[in-house]
Every structure is written in structure tokens, then in C-alpha cells.
């Protein structure tokens, strides 16, 4: 099916404008001629329709969008009269959180907390409905003029990886390297706590202006969270309160068992920061010690090499005494 053009009528939708184009699909603003309301139409690229993996992602996003109904989640409309493969969604006037972060770098703690609490409320709703987003990032959160939020793009929400793919599709199957949880890096599917981890990373980014884990490429960034601790937020900006820093650390715990179990607990702490106890964390002391896989490997081989030396030394000592 070819892409629609401005002014064209697609079923009962009049295409008004192309508003975005990604690797997977084009998004158009359109008017529903039956109801008169403005809608967004997501139209997959023809070559994407031929790729079962990306097309599955598109279909999954549509199914999940139809099942969810929350003011913080972009609504997807069912339409029995639709003749082509496209998705009709509610129109949201706003901008992506990514655009705002790129422009402003850092948010005030009050604004960051306000945005995060709304996202956590939406997350609590989707988690109680059995859906895990698994790819939360500023690109998937829309903000209106009053900082009201909408979660978008549930493409890998239900994903169970099995097919073989090239490295270029890493983000599509595992998640975005900057926001992916440690358990996802280790190949587990990840539950609601993977979304909480991504929100912790986003809070860190909004308060400090940088994501916590670094590396020269996606593979290194992904693995960095399993090896190293991030720079403490208060080292970057001392105006961040110890309580807010503690909340970030609780959200980005490497082991999901130690993380907030539910989005509502994370939101509660953000709303009652004065009641948050600040732990004496090892991460605050040894964050500057950087570990690399190569160093670990060298140390391992040095230890192996040291074993016969130690044994020989012991035998020598026993022989002399």
C-alpha cells in the first residue's frame, strides 16, 4: 500500500499533514470526516510491511494501545471500516520529552519530579493491566504545554525474542542502550521493574543533564551498567537533595529485587521526599573506580598464573620447616 499524500482521503480520514517520519512509519495529522475530530495516523513504510519483525512490532503496538485507556497513555482507536494497514490514534498537541531535554539540558527538581510522577501513574496503570513497556525513553513520552504526559510507542512491550537479527536492530529487540535495565542486558525479558529502572535513568538525566552510563558504542553503554556505578547526581549538581539522589539509586539498583517493586512506591517517595531515609551507599564511595571487561580478564589470568607460584611457595616453606 503506497503512502498517502496531503489532501488525500483515506477511508473516512482526510490527510492534513505529514508530521513525523521514522525508520518504521510515517505519522500524519488527519481529520475524521465522520466525527470531525483530529487524529494521528501511523502508516507503516511499505518495506517495513515486508519485514515480519518490524511489522509484528507495529501490530503489537496497535493491540496494546486499543486495550489501554488512561489519560497518560496515547489512545488507539479501533475502526472496523478501515481498509488498509494503518493505526489511528488520538491527536496530542505537544512535544517529545527528548526535544525538551535536548533544548534545556537540565530540569529543575520540581519540574522533573512533576513529570516523573505522572509517568509513574501511567506506568502503574499499564502494569496492573499486565503490560510492560520495556523501551521507556524520552523519545516515547510526549509533553503538552502544561507538562501533561502521554506514553507512546508500545512496540516491544510484548516482545519475546527468538529470531536472528543484525546488531542494527538491537534497540528493537532489547531496548535502548541508555535506558535498558541490567536484567535485559543479561538476556532476561524484564518485568515492570525494567520500566522503573528506565524511569530512574530518566530522572538522573533530567536532573544532571546526562545519562548515567557511558561508552564509545551501544554495546559498551549497555554493558557499563553491569560493571560500573554512575557519577553520583550530587557530584554533578550539589543542589540535588540527598533524598532525591537516594530515590534515583533505589530506582536504578542493579538487582531488580532491590529496586522499587511498583511504580506507585517510586511515585510515593517522590511525593514524600522528607520521609525518605538516606542510606550510606557503597556506590557513593567507589563510583570513580572504573572496571572494564579487559581488566577483569587480565586479573583473572594473573590469578590463575599466581596459583602454581603460591603452591610452590607453600611447598618450599613446608620443606624448610
Amino acid at each position, binding site marked *: 500500500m503506497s503512502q498517502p499524500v496531503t489532501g488525500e482521503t483515506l477511508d473516512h480520514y482526510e490527510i492534513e499533514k505529514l508530521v513525523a517520519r521514522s*525508520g518504521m512509519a510515517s505519522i500524519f495529522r488527519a481529520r475524521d470526516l465522520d466525527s470531525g475530530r483530529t487524529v494521528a495516523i501511523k502508516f507503516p*513504510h511499505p*518495506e517495513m510491511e*515486508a*519485514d*515480519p*519483525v*518490524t*511489522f509484528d512490532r507495529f501490530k503489537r503496538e496497535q493491540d496494546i494501545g486499543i486495550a489501554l485507556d488512561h489519560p497518560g497513555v496515547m489512545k488507539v482507536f479501533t475502526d472496523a471500516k478501515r481498509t488498509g494497514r494503518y493505526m489511528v490514534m488520538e491527536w496530542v498537541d505537544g512535544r517529545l520529552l527528548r526535544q525538551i531535554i535536548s533544548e534545556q539540558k537540565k530540569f529543575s527538581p520540581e519540574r522533573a519530579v512533576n513529570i516523573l510522577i505522572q509517568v509513574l501513574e501511567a506506568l502503574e496503570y499499564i502494569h496492573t493491566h499486565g503490560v510492560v513497556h520495556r523501551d521507556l525513553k524520552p523519545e516515547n513520552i510526549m509533553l503538552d504545554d502544561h507538562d501533561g504526559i502521554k506514553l507512546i510507542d508500545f512496540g516491544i512491550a510484548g516482545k*519475546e*525474542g*527468538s*529470531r*536472528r*537479527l*543484525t*546488531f*542494527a*536492530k*538491537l534497540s528493537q*529487540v*532489547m531496548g535502548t542502550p541508555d535506558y535498558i535495565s541490567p536484567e535485559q*542486558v*543479561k*538476556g*532476561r*525479558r524484564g518485568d515492570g521493574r525494567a520500566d522503573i529502572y528506565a524511569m530512574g535513568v530518566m530522572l538522573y538525566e533530567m536532573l544532571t543533564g546526562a545519562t548515567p552510563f557511558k561508552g564509545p558504542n551501544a*554495546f559498551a553503554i549497555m*554493558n557499563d551498567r*553491569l*560493571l560500573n556505578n554512575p557519577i553520583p547526581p550530587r557530584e554533578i549538581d550539589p543542589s540535588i537533595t540527598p533524598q532525591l539522589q537516594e530515590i534515583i539509586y533505589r530506582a536504578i539498583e542493579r538487582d531488580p529485587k532491590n529496586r522499587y517493586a511498583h511504580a506507585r512506591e517510586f511515585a510515593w517517595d517522590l511525593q514524600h521526599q522528607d520521609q525518605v531515609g538516606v542510606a550510606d551507599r557503597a556506590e557513593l564511595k567507589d563510583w570513580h573506580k572504573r572496571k572494564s*571487561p*579487559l581488566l*577483569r*580478564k587480565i586479573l*583473572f589470568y594473573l590469578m590463575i598464573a599466581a596459583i602454581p607460584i603460591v603452591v610452590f611457595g607453600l611447598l618450599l616453606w613446608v620443606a624448610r620447616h
Partner: protein
Amino acid sequence: MLHPHREESAYSSGAAAARAPQSSMLDIDFAQVSDTGRSRDHNEDYVGCVTPDSDARVRSHGWLFSLADGVGGHDCGEVASREAVETMLTGFRKAPGGEPLSGLLTRLVQAANIRVYEAGRAASPGGTSMATTIVACAIRFDRAVIAHVGDSRCYLIRRGHAKQLTRDHTVVNDQLRLGILSAREAADHQNKHLLSRSVGADLFVNVDVTDTQILPGDALLLCCDGFHGAVPEAQIGNIVNNMEDAKAAAHKLVQLANELDGSDNISVQLVRIRNVERMGMYRGRPYKLR
């Protein structure tokens, strides 16, 4: 002579015996099988080989075996694997005699990479839509040189024991090698098929090349992940060791992979070494060893 294959269940075999080789020359028996498997409706694998048609060609070029496993939606995987193997076979036939095999194979894989990359760009102007793994084995005198990209493998089977000569280029294998994952975590990883390197994904590709000495009685097995994901190494060694005929052994291996799994395409190339020509090298030139 070319032997490319990708059919629903394609078998082909050959031996140097028809040429009545000299007793001191490299002599091999081979068979290649590419099967769609039990679940898939089309075959994205492609296998091919170049066999020398004269004694002079045995010494100047030797044999080339190549196996590719396509990645991509619709028919893109099929196109990628076919283009990659055909590029390698054509390049090998045109190569000047006596060229060092490790350099030649690296050059041919690079050429295959550019060919697939361009085909992908032509099919999808917005980005590359196709890629493939490849494993190629060139045999001359008493050396086998293996070049590979992706997770298609080459095994050396000696005295009934199968040894993997290639290292899978997957994200999980790289994490395992760096000590980030344990062997158990790697085995349970839900994206263990995510390739860290593939032919056609980028304009340049890093090729791994392995050079190994071969002995009479050895066998080399090239296979795709549909095969090595299903059949354990111990069984590969047993079957190849117990079945003298290469065609029968290759058939048995594919049949076993289908019985154990069969959810993916299955392709193997089995090369049995009957005799080798022992050669040494002096200042880059080969000389005969007694």
C-alpha cells in the same frame, strides 16, 4: 566447476576421484545439503563450492566451500545469502593462482559484503534491509583456511571428535567472552541470535580468518545455526566418524537436525580429507615436504 544449491532439500556431492589424482596430491570427498526444515516455508540458506578441474588447478587454487544464512524479512534473506556465496565463488574462480588463501578469502568476503550492502540499499533506499552470515573454507595442499562473519560455523572433525574452529559473532557470545555473562546466562539469553557482525549490514566488515593444518582422515563441516543449534558436537563427531560416505553422513546430519528441532533452515557442507600434499613455506613460496 560450480555447485551452488538452495532447494527445498538439495543434495550434491563430489569427489576428486573422477579426476584420478596423483597419489601425493590433495584429495577430498564432499557433500552439501540445504534443507528448508520442518517449520519454514522458504529457505534463506545458500551453499556453493568451486572444485578444481585439473591437477594444476588443485595446486594453484584448491577447493572453496561457502555457506551463507540470510537475515531479513520477506525474500531479502534469500537474496543476501545467494549474492554473498555467488560473489565468493566467482571471485575465487577468477583469483590468480597461488595467492595466499587467508588474504584471498578476506578479500572475497569484503567483496561479498559490498555486493549485499549495495543490493540492500537498492531494495530499501532508507537503509539496508538485508544481511547474511557467511562461512567459507578454502583447502589447498595440507591447509584449510576458514573465513567467517556471523554465527555460521566450521568444525574440524578428527578421530571422531568435533572441534569448533570459528567463534560466533553474536552479542551474547561477545558478552560471554568479556566475562559479562556466565555460560548459563548466555544459554538462557532470549536474544542469543542477535548478530554482532553480519555481511551486508555496513559498508565494511571485520572478517575472522583461521588457518589450520589438515590430515588424511579429517573432516570439515560447515553449517548454519539451524544445524548447530540442534545437534550437539558429540553427535556430529560420532556420525561423521562412523559413516564413510560423505553424502550419506551429510544426509544423516540434516535428518538428525530435523528430528531434534527443524524450526529453521538447515544447511551443511561436509568435506572429508582423503589425502593431503604436505607443503612447507620458504619466503612466501611453497615447497614440497617428504
